């Protein structure tokens, strides 16, 4: 069966299905109960599953992650909501030194099936701490899995796959796209959680990104086409681990690649992917892998986000630079 719905509803439906099928799943976070979350992703879930399955926690992120670890030790599968990207840092020790390492510390005897949902990224004109893209902090941390859906169908399935994972998953939700609609096939997932996907075929340049950036990459690809350049677009979907197969296949054909992200560029996921693709496809590359990123400044006041965030033009500029090699 397929249904058309926005990403926020797809997430809601996916969470609902997980709550229904596994009674050890519980949701916890700030304002996820009667309010349904500030983005309404959990709307209606507390009234349907009760306040023991959908829990409004005290206002403390380290507490949320730390107690989720204890809940997981007790056999629960907690799905946490961090209200905005910029509010995850108080929980950083519990995520980095605890959650990510507990299975390893126990030599595999304890699993840590905890999902941390984080609405991330800009484009919503909000105040400070509400528009950040913190993925690099998590992808650098061994023991975490990091994923981000860019379509409603992926949102629906990936959240369920993340909940099913025995490992901790940081689940980054592209908040600018919560209202973007798409077809959701509720029968079977299209891909495993950690697969990347070619979303547009092309022959000249490979464009890679995740989350909200996929839309921008597709825009850039359309514009490029009108200028006679054929771009292949790949949605990363999994940020850690990265599924390099489709990317390398593509780069070996195109010889050129542009990676785009909202996050600051320095020591970022884009750095990693550029370095690794270069290493693995060195002789295929006609040009260095170019990166289009947020600048290495704090996310600016909203009136400047249009300048800060990579748009189709900035991506095309990189495409042109790549082609000029």
């Amino acid at each position, binding site marked *: 069966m397929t249904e058309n719905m926005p990403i926020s509803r797809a997430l809601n439906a996916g969470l609902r299905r997980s709550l229904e099928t596994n009674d050890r799943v519980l949701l916890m976070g700030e304002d996820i109960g009667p*309010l349904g979350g500030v983005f309404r992703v959990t709307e209606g879930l507390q009234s349907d599953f009760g306040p023991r399955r959908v829990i409004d926690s005290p206002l403390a992120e380290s507490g949320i992650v730390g107690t989720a670890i204890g809940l997981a030790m007790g056999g629960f599968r907690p799905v946490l909501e961090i209200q905005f990207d910029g509010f995850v840092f108080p929980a950083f020790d519990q995520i980095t030194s605890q959650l990510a390492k507990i299975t390893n510390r126990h030599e595999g005897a304890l699993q840590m099936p905890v999902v941390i949902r984080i609405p991330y990224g800009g484009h919503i004109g909000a105040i400070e701490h509400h528009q950040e893209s913190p993925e690099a902090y998590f992808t650098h941390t061994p023991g975490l899995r990091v994923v981000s859906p860019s379509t409603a169908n992926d949102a629906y399935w990936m959240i369920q796959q993340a909940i099913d994972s025995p490992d901790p998953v940081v689940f980054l939700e592209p908040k600018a796209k919560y209202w973007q609609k798409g077809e959701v096939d509720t029968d079977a997932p299209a891909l495993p959680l950690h697969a990347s996907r070619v979303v547009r075929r092309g022959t000249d340049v490979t464009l890679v990104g995740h989350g909200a950036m996929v839309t921008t990459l597709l825009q850039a690809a359309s514009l490029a086409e009108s200028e006679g350049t054929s771009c292949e677009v790949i949605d990363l979907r999994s940020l850690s681990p990265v599924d390099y197969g489709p990317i390398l296949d593509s780069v070996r054909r195109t010889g050129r690649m542009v990676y785009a992200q909202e996050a600051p560029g320095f020591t970022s996921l884009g750095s990693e992917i550029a370095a690794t693709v270069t290493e693995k496809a060195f002789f295929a590359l006609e040009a260095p892998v170019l990166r289009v990123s947020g600048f290495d400044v704090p996310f600016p006041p909203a009136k400047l986000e249009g300048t800060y965030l990579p748009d189709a033009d900035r991506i095309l500029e990189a495409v042109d630079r790549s082609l000029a090699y």
Partner: protein
Amino acid sequence: MTPLDDPALVRVLAANGTLAPTPEAERYLPLIDALTDAELETFYRDMVSIRAFDVQATNLQRQGQLALWPPSFGQEAAQVGSARAARPQDHIFPSYREHVVTRIRGVDPLDIIRLMRGLTHGGWDPSDPKNGNTHIYTLVLGAQTLHATGLGMGLVFDGKCGTGDPERDEAVIVYYGDGASSQGDVHEAMVFAASFQTPEVFFLQNNQWAISVPVATQSRTPLYKRAAGYGMPSIQVDGNDVLASYAVSKAALDEARAGGGPRAIEAMTYRRGAHTTSDDPTKYRTSAEEEAWAGRDPIARLRTFLEARGASEQFFEDADAEGRALADDVRVRTNELGGLPRSHMFDSVYSEAHALITEEQRWLDDYEASMEGGAQ
């Protein structure tokens, strides 16, 4: 137990505006008796003005002029009382809803408007004397309590408190909410404050809600009781009674300034509006509750009291006019606000030159130039 039943509560004015001190309020009465008519009228004008500002800002947000507005509606007495109790040399660390406090200290309300419009992450320079040592808003809940404590430690190290000279001694007051009280940083701030005996007042506005979460989720115990565990004196006050709020704040700040170490105040109040303009309180609270708190409104309460004391009708009209003038001024100046140059983003990431920033700024300038060139 409703939130205002704690036997330790300090209240001077009953909800109906009559003088009816609770037992715990007795010892503060001299401070209140010492208030002049002019001072009392200032309290009233403060509250009325900022409420007019608040309504204006909410409208501006509706008109798309602001990204967001967090109203202070309902919390005016807690804020006016505490801010008016501070001395000019004191240091103020607001959270993000202390519009009344910042205005009293001299901050231009437009600076807050610029913040909520997406033109700045700050708004004003705390070291500029016109801003009355008022620090900017902090959006990560509780983080500012540590900054305030650190500043207080510096006052101790520099011998700027406890000298016995109230004209010179300095104190710090830091604002935070019932929700923020759960953050680890608030605990660590109290640990450091107690350890270093900072001249500091922890001022908690318990407005009953952290967005949609009732204070009972944060604590089943009145929050002012936490302070005792750090050896800090603490007080619960009716935060909708500006006189009580003033008196307990003044006593606490005076004691802190004089070298008595940190103390805590829990002001019981109510966020009468939405959390922010993005919020919909009907999802999580009843109109019965909202009405009950409307009956405890801080402005009406002081008005009745002032009327009984003989304040003139003219005074109230003037106060309203003053509020309208402020609101009009804010509207006009908001409409005049311009944009930001793209260099703004790079200008003050570091205080000294930084190779990567320089390179990126240069790249962006060239890029924009080429785009404009291309568009021509």
